[in-house]
């Protein structure tokens, strides 16, 4: 075993589901150092990343499209049925803010640890996460409301395309004005906005090209064109939404009304497009997407008796779907009543007949 060089160890370990790899940290010092290495960890998280999507209004079914084909020979779930009152309120850095029928909680689907948050107004709410180390993250639930408490004025300030940032440590908010001379208007359906490698990044698509801009300097309002992608796969399709971008790869959701939608990944280094999944034509056009990248962030766990069994079952299904687990035989919560694949087929048949 000592003969196995790091490359070969990598070749074996990166094929394991996240949970198993983390267990291997306890085998020996070499395994612990190897697995805790940041490069290996990023590669592992990317291998286990996925696009998590559902219908925007009152979804029943949630689907997962892995960014990379699974390495394991054992089957994993690709969809899950959850109660209609269930909502994903926010996502940030591997953590989900959920409304599982009653009460709000923060969940890490990989570790299954969750914390109940005592708030009762669910609008204009978000999750801010500051990763400090691999398993130590600072997280806060943020709610935007007008200072004088007038509920009608909740979101007015944010219609004019400014960025609201929140400092987790100081618990302060700051507005960054977007540069007035942005090359293309920021439209929800064809643009993407996020932080990549510490820099605010904006992506806009048109039928001719995709532009990636980074905001270098907020005070002087300068923006730099980082990448221009001129060949777009299926560029004539009417729906073209950037979903995921990490500096090296871009995932677009492409669809023509009434037809199957496609998720396509563009690898910037090798200038190649690859189809990674489809969305059936009978599923609603207007969908919500979460580009899920797992993390090992610890959550201050709420003890079991405070969370109802029904909620625990929901969390368990989400963990199976997103946490990269294999369906366990000896599970205490025997989910006999929930077999996602057979439900999906019934649902689709019913929709087809209608």
């Amino acid at each position, binding site marked *: *075993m000592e003969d196995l060089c790091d490359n070969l160890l990598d070749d*074996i370990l990166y094929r394991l589901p996240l949970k*198993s790899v983390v*267990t291997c940290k*306890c085998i020996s010092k070499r395994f612990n150092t190897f697995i805790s290495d940041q490069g290996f960890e990023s590669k592992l998280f990317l291998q286990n990343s996925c696009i998590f999507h559902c219908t925007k209004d009152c979804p029943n079914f949630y689907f997962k499209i892995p960014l990379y084909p699974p390495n394991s020979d054992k089957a994993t779930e690709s969809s899950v049925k959850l109660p209609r009152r269930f909502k994903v309120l926010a996502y940030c850095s591997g953590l989900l803010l959920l409304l599982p029928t009653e009460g709000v909680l923060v969940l890490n689907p990989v570790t299954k640890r969750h914390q109940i948050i005592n708030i009762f107004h669910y609008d204009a709410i978000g999750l801010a996460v500051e990763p400090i180390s691999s398993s130590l993250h600072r997280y806060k639930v943020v709610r935007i409301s007008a200072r004088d408490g007038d509920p009608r004025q909740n979101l007015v300030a944010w219609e004019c395309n400014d960025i609201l940032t929140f400092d987790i440590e100081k618990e302060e908010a700051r507005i960054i004005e977007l540069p007035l001379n942005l090359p293309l208007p920021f439209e929800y359906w064809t643009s993407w906005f996020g932080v990549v490698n510490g820099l605010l990044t904006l992506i806009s698509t048109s039928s001719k090209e995709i532009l990636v801009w980074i905001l270098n300097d907020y005070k002087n309002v300068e923006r730099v064109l980082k990448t221009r992608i001129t060949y777009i796969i299926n560029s004539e399709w009417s729906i073209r939404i950037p979903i995921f971008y990490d500096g090296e790869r871009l995932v677009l959701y492409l669809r023509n009304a009434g037809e199957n939608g496609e998720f396509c990944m563009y690898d910037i280094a090798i200038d190649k497009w690859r189809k990674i999944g489809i969305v059936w034509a009978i599923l609603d056009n207007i969908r919500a997407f979460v580009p899920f990248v797992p993390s090992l962030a610890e959550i201050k766990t709420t003890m079991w008796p405070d969370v109802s069994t029904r909620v625990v079952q929901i969390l368990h299904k989400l963990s199976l779907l997103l946490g990269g687990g294999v369906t366990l035989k000896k599970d205490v919560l025997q989910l006999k009543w929930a077999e996602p694949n057979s439900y999906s087929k019934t649902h689709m048949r019913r929709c087809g007949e209608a």
Partner: protein
Amino acid sequence: MKFCTVKQYFDDENNNNVTNGIATTVIPLPNKHLKIKANNKEMEQYEQELLRNVMPQELTKLILAANYLNFKEALDFFCRTVANAIQNKSVDYVRKFFGLESDFEPGEEEKLCKEFAWSFEGVDED
């Protein structure tokens, strides 16, 4: 094209990297691959047959042999087999599988197990 290393292997008389037993397992693989290239199921069955009698320690040697011979498909297959074998198993099982022993300081291992306690839930029994 896949076999410049194999030629080298036969040329080197004192070769410690690949013992005879391993060579007889690995070398027929590419021929078989070519013969049943299109038929995945047959290949799977052949692979299952091959590995039925292989002990875990030999798997490590097979991986090293495939790596030395620069034989990508075999390496992929052997690594996949090892990954499937150790998936969702306890720390002790994996240690025994690879013939390893813990080299942690006293208390270090307990600390790690406590930090990642969530990953031990639902692990297969040995």
